[in-house]
């Protein structure tokens, strides 16, 4: 008896000592079942997704990252989205009733939205009941980007394009004042008038930036609206811990639209074995609870995924690729022990990595002395000829990345598979010949400054680069690393054109090569997105010509011509699109995409309950 009594006393003491601590960490507590009261037919169906980064803000104004976009497209509505399964990516109506009516001159767009779509219930509304979403909400949501009191990262999508919108912002952003080019014609009709044709306009309305917010919620929560989303998307936020996780529950008011797999791009040859047939005819969202863990530490992400009862989805970290793949030959396959437990898909990223020369740097780019400028070009071309993409692919991208010449990546329809691969093929003889032709010797070579954020990987990339340069005659001390403590510092230096050689990655905003070609458009030089500060009048002219053209063979021809100009000028070492491998548990029905479809795919994810397994 005595030992039991002592044990009980000890346990009681422990509970008394530790209970207050446990309660400290509980916060308000989250009750999923309460949130879905009356809408559950059994235990809630839970799907735990994971992302390798976190959104900074949940305000659509700041939907600048894939992480933010993933959340935004699930808690808010956008006019359009991308089809779940169709590749190449295809846009399809979401909140819009169909594709827009476009005037013959391509300047006026009319969008109609679905009636009977309601915002979630929230204290921001009278009586806490979400009201109907109308065309005026869309107008308001776009106007917010041009309000100088806001910090919008998405205004560039529409700046200088919609009649009167920029001026509306400059004149004080009076939300009661009408903008000529952005009007709600009635409750369900939106009219947009453009200054000049903008073929990518419809794609901008599939971005998180264009997510539709209610004015009442913005007014009620002020700046904290960024952590308190009030939308009409398939999920509603139940709890959000910035940087750690987002816990969402099914929006019970979300419109019932049964899934038509054929319309979503289902192809039995491509999608066999994923169990997708089971979701045909069901109305999204298919799970009751969607939890997204933001896990930057790949070791923790992998341990949680393989544990079995935590996160059900992971991107495969580079260090695990060798471990999980049976072979690196396409199509990639999992080793049997992994294939038994998990499903996998992989896709070439919608984007690419590239290493640019800063053309504003007279030591390597444009120079007042035409002779030196010519020699600089020979130097850049020599460096490019010494750049070993195969080696970079093997060392840093598991050897499964796709190397391609230029800046039109394989994922866009304008990609040219027949383009010469000379610019991405290492040729040391050619590099040395170019050095000689330019009169470059160890003594007169400029010091190459390779900038990057202080990290082991960046440092390794630099050392690899330095090795290549040494092979063509650069003395070791003439290839140096310019290290920045944080990405913010690095980004600032890039935007101020202070770095000579810049390694960057670019994720496409939409599946149109215009989005990558603009990276080298002269007027977008630093602090714009043209980090190389390339400024070729012919390239710029072609960009402006193509920018107003609808997709067509002629536009593709112009795009490809621009690509060739950029390659000929040796402005960048480019490029490589990474192959992203994604894995998920077998009880999850999904066809994951972290690219263009991004967050939109989560509404189609289903989880088999134990009895269905």
């Amino acid at each position, binding site marked *: 008896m005595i030992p039991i009594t002592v044990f009980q006393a000890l346990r009681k003491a422990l509970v008394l000592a530790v209970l207050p601590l446990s309660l*400290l960490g509980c916060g308000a507590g989250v009750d999923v079942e309460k949130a879905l009261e009356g809408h559950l037919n059994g235990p809630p169906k839970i799907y735990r997704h994971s992302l390798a980064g976190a959104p900074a803000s949940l305000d659509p104004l700041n939907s600048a990252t894939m992480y933010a976009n993933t959340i935004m497209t699930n808690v808010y509505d956008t006019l359009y989205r991308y089809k779940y399964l169709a590749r190449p990516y295809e846009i399809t109506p979401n909140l819009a009733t169909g594709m827009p009516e476009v005037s013959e001159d391509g300047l006026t767009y009319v969008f109609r939205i679905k009636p009977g779509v309601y915002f979630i219930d929230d204290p921001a509304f009278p009586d806490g009941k979400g009201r109907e979403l109308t065309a005026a909400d869309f107008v308001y949501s776009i106007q917010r980007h041009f309000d*100088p009191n806001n910090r*919008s990262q998405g205004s560039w999508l529409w700046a200088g394009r919609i009649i009167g919108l920029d001026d509306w912002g400059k004149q004080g952003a009076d939300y009661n004042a009408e903008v000529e080019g952005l009007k709600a014609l009635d409750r369900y009709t939106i009219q947009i008038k453009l200054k000049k044709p903008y073929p990518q306009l419809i794609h901008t309305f599939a971005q998180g930036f264009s997510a539709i917010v209610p004015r009442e919620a913005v007014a009620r929560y002020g700046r904290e609206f960024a952590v308190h989303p009030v939308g009409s998307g398939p999920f509603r936020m139940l709890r959000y811990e910035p940087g750690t996780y987002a816990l969402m529950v099914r929006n019970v008011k979300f419109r019932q639209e049964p899934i038509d797999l054929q319309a979503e791009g289902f192809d039995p040859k491509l999608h066999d074995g994923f169990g997708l047939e089971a979701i045909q005819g069901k109305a999204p969202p298919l799970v009751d609870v969607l939890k997204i863990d933001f896990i930057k530490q790949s070791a923790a992400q992998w341990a949680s995924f393989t*544990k079995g009862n935590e996160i059900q989805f992971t991107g495969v970290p580079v260090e695990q690729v060798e471990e999980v793949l049976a072979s690196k030959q396409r199509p990639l396959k999992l080793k049997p022990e992994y294939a038994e437990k998990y499903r996998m898909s992989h896709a070439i990223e919608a984007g690419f990595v590239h290493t640019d020369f800063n053309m504003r740097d007279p030591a390597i780019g444009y120079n007042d002395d035409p002779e030196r400028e010519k020699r600089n070009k020979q130097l850049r071309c020599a460096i490019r000829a010494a750049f070993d993409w195969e080696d970079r692919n093997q060392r840093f991208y598991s050897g499964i990345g796709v190397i391609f010449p230029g800046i039109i990546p394989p994922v866009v329809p304008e990609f040219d598979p027949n383009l010469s691969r000379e610019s991405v093929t290492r040729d040391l003889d050619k590099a040395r010949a170019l050095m000689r032709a330019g009169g470059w010797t160890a003594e007169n070579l400029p010091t190459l400054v390779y900038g990057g954020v202080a990290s082991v990987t960046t440092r390794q990339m630099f050392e690899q680069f330095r090795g290549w340069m040494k092979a063509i005659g650069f003395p070791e001390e003439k290839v140096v690393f310019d290290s920045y403590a944080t990405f913010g510092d690095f980004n600032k230096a890039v935007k101020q054109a202070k770095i000579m050689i810049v390694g960057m990655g670019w994720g496409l905003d939409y599946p149109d090569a215009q989005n990558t070609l603009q990276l080298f458009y002269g007027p977008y030089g630093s602090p714009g997105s043209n980090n190389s500060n390339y400024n070729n009048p012919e390239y710029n002219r072609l960009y402006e010509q193509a920018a107003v053209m609808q997709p067509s063979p002629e536009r593709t021809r112009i795009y490809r011509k621009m690509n060739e100009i950029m390659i000929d000028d040796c402005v960048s070492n480019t490029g490589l699109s990474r192959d992203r491998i994604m894995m998920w548990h077998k009880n999850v029905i999904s066809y994951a995409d972290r690219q263009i479809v991004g967050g939109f795919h989560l509404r189609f994810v289903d989880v088999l309950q134990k009895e269905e397994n």
Partner: protein
Amino acid sequence: MEMLQYTLRKLITGIPLVLGVTLISFVLMVYFGPDKTYDLLGKNPTPEEIAQVRHQLGYDQPFVVRYLDYLRELVTLDFGYSDSSGERVGSILKRTIPVSLAVILPGFILGNLLGVVLALVAAYHRGGWIDKLIMAGSVVGMSVSFLIVIIAFQVIFSSSYGLNWFPVLGWDVYSFWDYLRYVTVPTLASVFVALGYNTRFYRAVIVEEMGRDHVRTARAYGASPAELLFKSILKNSLIPIITRIMFSIPLVVVSGSLLIESYFGIPGVGKVAFDAITTGDQPILKAVVGLTAVLFVVVLIINDILYKVVDPRVSLK
């Protein structure tokens, strides 16, 4: 009365300390911290947009104005909104500090308690194999990187490759049982590392005390080992022990444990502070640094009062 006077005096003399810490840290933030401007801008910003964001961030204000603003915020405890998430800094701290406390305190308490116990045992058996064993264990705890300990403990206790007993990550705490599930592995990891440092430090203090005359006298009078250790040695060693524990508290409360929170997916203040440092979120940084400085002053006062409690010879004058 004496204590109240002392507290007030210490509070007043603590003001220069707070001013000094906040000034130095603010200089570092302003002149050496990350510039957030370009993180908040969209693509292809105009010079006006850049100027607008810099104005919103207060970067265009003179240093003195910004520092005075900081002091005002510290006095009113209103640090505004996070530059990243847009959430009120007060709300962030209110939400995350309790979580960090709940995660770290068990490890902190156990690490110190066990450290004292092991130090007593080691000191009592000074030079013997028990002492050597404990000291060797301490060296291991001190030598292995905390990061490695966390990953190893995660693999051993939480992953499918190990025992698979506890969650790898998360903080879904709704009951005491949940709490134990989530806090056990982080606590084991922190205790493993803390024990090394604590045991070595406390052993040194206790060994010094053991050589004193009063201990020898007590031994001569035939005091039992327990009486000797707890009454004669530990009690007289309390001042350095209290000092070490007390001065760790501000870091535990405000800074949390970045690595633990990051690797275990725990939404605590350590992770928030680290993210603020790397992204240059000055409102959060100002709050964390300022509150840590204030807490140090408070701890300093409590520390001195505790000295008086454990050793009546100490004067508060």
